[in-house]
């Protein structure tokens, strides 16, 4: 079964293509994992599109790493 984590990781890899970020540590900030600000923005938009949510200006800190994104989405889903 695909988990939210699997899905988030997939979205990040897709958003960064053709580059391949280092997501070996899910607690590490995405901007320290090989993503530049453009990749990171694309990741946020991909998450918004896929989960049909809107990330408000003051919520960026909730989406800084894979762990944070997953945690926020799980909370939202009520998982």
């Amino acid at each position, binding site marked *: 079964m695909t988990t*939210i984590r*699997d*899905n988030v990781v997939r979205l990040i890899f897709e958003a960064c293509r053709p580059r391949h970020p280092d997501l070996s540590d899910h607690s590490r900030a995405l901007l320290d994992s090989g993503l530049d600000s453009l990749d990171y*923005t694309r990741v946020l*938009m991909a998450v918004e*599109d896929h989960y049909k949510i*809107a*990330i408000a200006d003051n919520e960026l800190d909730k989406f800084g790493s894979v762990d944070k994104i997953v945690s926020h989405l799980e909370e939202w889903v009520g998982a």
Partner: protein
Amino acid sequence: MLFERMTARAGEPALFRDGAEVSFDGLLSRVAAWERDLLERGIGAGTVCAFAGDYAPDTIALMLAIMRLGGISLPLTPAAEQGLLELLAISGAQWLIRFSDNLDRAGASVEPLGAPAQNELIEHFRATGHPGLIVFTSGSSGRPKGILHDFDRVLGKFAVKRPGWRTILFLSIDHFGGINTLMACLSYGGVGICVSQRTPDIVCGAVASARATLLPTTPTFLNMLRASGTWRLHDLSSLRLITYGAEPMPEATLKWIGEAVPNVELKQTYGLSELGVLHSQSPERRSLWLRIGGHGFETRIVDNVLHIRSESNMVGYLNAPSPIDEDGWMNTGDMVEMRDGMVRFLGRTSEVLNVGGQKVFPAEVENVLLGAEGVVEATVFGRRHALLGQAVCARVSLARGEDAGAAAERLRLYCLERLAKFKVPMRIEVVQHSAQANERSKKVRRVGEGPSAEERLMDRSIKENPV
């Protein structure tokens, strides 16, 4: 001058509609009929008279009758119906004439609108005794701005005789470019060809049936032609010239039209509702560079933005401060490159995106997208984003069916190979072609904010879309 020339060509064709020609004589008879009708109702010098319709012998005759009586015309299209009250209020219209579907005088309703609010600009203008013309432009704030022109001054541009063309009246009757085309036809002894709709099939059909020699249009409409493919079904051999303007021309579109109609001259035009249409000349058929100006126009570039001083300047805005400085110059808001006395248009200053402090011209990105296989239209716009200020987004239309997600990814990678990364659209949406053009066949570029986070939050439906 206009009426003398029309009278001198009495037996020659002036207009073409529904397969039949109307002579200048016939048109002048219709003008006279309208004049009698208007005068009986007390519509005359200085009266602001709105009318809603499209090009047809009786609508054109009405505008000419108002002009000859010294009134002020406000041409509108049925598309204006939604915001009609606002337009009538801004213009201080005293009468509204609505045409029925057949656009005949007999079926037109003439309604008085009561006492309008006083407008100082119109009051001053009335004192000149000249006929006027009001057109609207969509202001950057979203509120329409009413532009008052002295019709005599507008006609002054056509004083020098030039050859007349059999011209498709493509640009709408409420558009300054449309009025400019019509007046050129009537002044130079051309034939104005009325079309019932601006669809590729109907426009190409009109070219074929009326043997049109000139099609003044927009890059967006040329892309619609390309997308529809219907241009192949009609005999376009009479065409000698296609002019395009109102928005930047993508190189890919120019290349396509150049190949599709190899014997037709292509010419970029440039004008503003506030200043008139300038004469333009390109060094070669497929060049996006052009020399602009001509009698009565001066140009200069300030910080890469084109400024123009014109003898056919508008009288002024009816509901906004004048954009023309005390020396007569107007900042056009059009960013240009300059080379050897020629300019190339990059886009509107208001459309330039700022992505993390870096400028992105939508036209440049659209041009790359249009070079990708299967893309027939592309519109690039900005969406506000917390991290970068703005993110580049695009809507594209495809010639053939393709999975939207796969197409978006293919196009993103295509752009990555050709553009700096900050210019590559972060979101590419595949849409129907018709979703990208407005009723003026001009690109609809959604600029700036997009839905706010709060609005998007309203749509949260994560539980309907599980992982």
